[in-house]
């Protein structure tokens, strides 16, 4: 039965599509191949989520080699949700990409873009689906290398330095993670995540395990751009091609965040990470710094892409804050925000992609009066922005609600107040754009010749916007899966 092989198909289809795109060397064929691969991956992710909801955890022994000799793929509620959101955003972005890429990349490199894109996608899905710590590292490198190249594809020359910066930081992060995994292997003799989680408690008291914990935490923190390790992010997001920004912003940091959850909760376990190690207080302090500093920096940006990049730094803070509560509600909030933030940022960066398609840049100055010329694009930006602020009836409200309930549960009401007040900082930077687009007179030179973006770009943007609204009103799927996932991670139930 093919359904048994879904976990491996999830990874192998995008990976195989990459050389096909390269061989095709025609941008239309490459686009079709990568699009088909991405949608197939989305379908598989949906089926996998359905199976885990019905049957519980799915395990798959790669090549028939049984654990612990072979590599195991393992899908539970946590990564099933991540697989779904990554493939969904990826498919929307690829549908969007056809027109945008032609405009922003040199035509000779377009098929390379598609090849790298599916390679990166395959890497991200591999990280998510695997149940083996070393395999996870390998996929992490695949996706990271692909994304460095994706950023460097841009015609903008500053993209090269941005990519180099990202490569530098990313490699340090990866090395740290590898050192950590090596130390864990030394102590336990296994790389299988389930095995690790069973054998670690016996040796947890050693300094080696504590060192491994420190290396891994810092390594992953670089990958998720937790302040103060976020320095690679703003430049990478600003200078990358629009579609790459949308894809990486919505998926790469989310997958890295998933890796953090996996290591902290499944491998090390709550009691080690939060009782033996002072993770809670460190994460809370860093998260609050990220939220305040990221949001404040965003307010002062004139380039809207950079503004949203700093906003991402802040939003990552909210997710980390959810972890630092170390409770079922806090963790639910973090997982919900992982999903919801991917929807928001995906939608917002695609809307900006539309703007860049017509204007070439996304500066606030140039966007004055754009509400008239590009009504659908700017309406999408407004709704996405409101979702980012956390206005009711959008996904942003749902994650904020859980975060505040989580904080109040523990009696930390200043934290609840901080979460709510920082949404106002978000409002300020979103509103600068809204005000410019709707209530300021257009730039004289541009006058009225700006037209709405092509339909092939508007449709995927609006699909994500509608998802922002839909999952803000009907949360049965997301909240159920997220709260079950949180309980699984905390070991409260199967």
């Amino acid at each position, binding site marked *: 039965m093919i359904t048994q092989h879904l976990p491996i198909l999830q990874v192998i289809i995008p990976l195989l599509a990459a050389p096909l795109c390269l061989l095709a060397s025609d941008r239309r064929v490459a686009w079709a191949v990568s699009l088909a691969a991405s949608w197939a991956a989305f379908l598989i992710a949906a089926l996998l989520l359905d199976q885990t909801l019905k049957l519980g955890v799915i395990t798959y022994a790669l090549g028939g080699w049984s654990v612990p000799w072979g590599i195991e793929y393992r899908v539970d509620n946590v990564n099933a949700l991540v697989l779904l959101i990554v493939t969904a955003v990826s498919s929307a972005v690829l549908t969007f990409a056809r027109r945008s890429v032609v405009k922003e990349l040199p035509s000779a490199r377009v098929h390379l873009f598609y090849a790298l894109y599916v390679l990166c996608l395959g890497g991200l899905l591999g990280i998510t689906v695997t149940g083996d710590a070393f395999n996870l590292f390998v996929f992490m490198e695949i996706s990271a290398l692909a994304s460095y190249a994706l950023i460097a594809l841009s015609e903008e020359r500053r993209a090269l330095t941005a990519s180099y910066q990202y490569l530098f930081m990313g490699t340090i992060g990866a090395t740290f993670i590898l050192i950590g995994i090596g130390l864990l292997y030394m102590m336990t003799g296994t790389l299988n995540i389930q095995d690790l989680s069973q054998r670690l408690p016996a040796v947890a008291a050693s300094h080696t395990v504590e060192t491994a914990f420190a290396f891994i935490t810092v390594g992953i923190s670089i990958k998720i751009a937790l302040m103060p390790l976020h320095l690679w992010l703003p430049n990478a997001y600003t200078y990358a091609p629009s579609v790459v920004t949308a894809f990486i912003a919505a998926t790469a940091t989310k997958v890295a965040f998933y890796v953090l959850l996996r290591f902290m909760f499944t491998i090390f376990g709550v009691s080690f990470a939060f009782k033996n190690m002072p993770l809670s207080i460190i994460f809370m302090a860093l998260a609050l710094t990220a939220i305040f500093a990221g949001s404040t920096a965003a307010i002062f940006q004139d380039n809207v892409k950079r503004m949203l990049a700093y906003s991402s730094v802040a939003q990552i803070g909210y997710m980390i804050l959810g972890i630092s509560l170390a409770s079922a509600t806090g963790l639910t909030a973090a997982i919900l925000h992982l999903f919801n933030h991917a929807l928001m940022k995906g939608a917002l960066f695609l809307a900006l992609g539309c703007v860049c398609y017509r204007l070439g840049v996304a500066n606030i100055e140039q966007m004055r009066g754009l509400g008239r010329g590009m009504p659908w694009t700017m309406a999408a930006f407004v709704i996405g922005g409101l979702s980012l602020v956390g*206005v009711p009836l959008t996904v942003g409200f*749902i994650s904020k609600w859980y975060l*505040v309930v989580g904080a109040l549960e523990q009696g930390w009401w200043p934290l*609840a107040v901080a979460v709510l007040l920082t*949404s*106002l900082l978000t409002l300020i930077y979103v509103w600068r754009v809204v005000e410019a687009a709707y209530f*300021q007179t257009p730039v004289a030179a541009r006058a009225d010749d700006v037209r709405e973006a092509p339909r092939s770009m508007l449709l995927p943007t609006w699909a994500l916007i509608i998802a922002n609204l839909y999952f803000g009103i*009907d949360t*049965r799927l997301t909240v159920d899966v997220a709260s079950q996932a949180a309980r699984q991670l905390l070991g409260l139930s199967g």
Partner: protein
Amino acid sequence: MNPETALPLAFWTPLGGAVLIAFSGSRGAMRELLSLVTSALLFVSVTALAPAVLEGARPGLTIAEPLPRLPLQLTVEPLGLMFALLASLLWIVTTVYSIGYMRARRETNLTRFYACFALSLWAAVGMALAGNLLTLFVFYEVLTLSTYPLVTHSGSEQARRSGRLYLGLLLAPSVGFLLLAVIWTWQLAGTLDFVEGGSLRGTASPSVLGILFALYAFGIAKAALMPLHRWLPAAMVAPTPVSALLHAVAVVKGGVFFILKITLYVFGIDLVAELQTTQWLLYLAAATILLASLVALRKDNLKARLAYSTISQLGYVVLGAFLATSSGIIGGSLHMIMHAFGKITLFFCAGAILVATQISSISQMQGLGRYMPLTMSAFLIGALSIIGLPPAGGVWSKWFLMLGTLEAGQQALLAALMASSLLSALYLLMIPLRAFFSPPSAELAAEGIREAPLSCLLAIGFTALGCVGLFFYADALYAVARLLTGGGYHG
């Protein structure tokens, strides 16, 4: 129409209208017709709900369940019914008025204007019919956001700055205080439903509940309790129909409606009466009433004066709620209606004067009664209603509010209410009196001024007659308000 069809119809009509208007393109007559039809349909469907609700039925509708055990749902009860009837009836009138006003002023961006107007009414109806705190909060926020484009309508630098103030001063407390209070209530009571007699009693110590009550009082900035009132004068930069319907009726009444709701159904009047905070909040309300009246006295711009008058009058409703006696609640809820009719009349008149003469400052309105007798007569009636003099409806609500202060043994508050009535007589009555009895200035006489367009006059006439009608037929409203304090409809 039975309640099962009337309720969904009442809820979805304004939203559907807003969408249709947004897609009507730039066909002027079409969007005006759509606005009229939508408002009429809304009024009819809300009216159809009334008989059943007054007989004690509580028709409900669940729209969605965004959070487990926390649905977005509608439940119609007497107070919400009153608010919904008020907003939908005055929307029809305002639409008629807008058609004349917006054409005469040659305003642009009218599709956005009418669409956002319908959206704001959707939010107001959503608030009126909300079946739990979450729903009420959600539509409170929708109302803020949907009125923002109306405030900044003109797009001038001043409009944008006022818009920022408006949005910031309404959203910041609603997120920082109100949302926190709602979630805290959820933590304490385990429910956000509206319960007769309140759901919070005994869930925490009185001092904690007192803090929570203050969070609500300050979080609901739409009730314009000082020092959170600055957004209302800022909103006056909007076109007059917006100031009239939204910033004298829907938005501000939404604020005091929220206060009445939590007083009645979340805390319960017995608990409110026991809380220590209540006493301080009562003094704050009284201070708001007096200070806003004093500021109004000094404003020469007519709309600014009316805005401060609104702040003062909203204080009456809040005070009525915080008195936590049956007369206070009855007076507060009646005042919601009476003030709405009076103030919308005054704003309509201010707009009519602006359209006919381009004048917005009071000092230039001397002798205007000679050229615009109908407008200035209506202004007089509206002013009488606000002051609380017969033959206008405002008498009755002030009567009950004063009775409420005596019931609660708060003689100082009674004095504050009376002083403020005197002040309002000063700042409002002088305007029509000078218009009728002072000689017009030379420029005014030279200009050949005539009354505003017919559609404006129709609207003004309707609301002015409404003020008088409410004086003679207030018993119907009183019967509804009595239901809130546990009395029977026919009793």
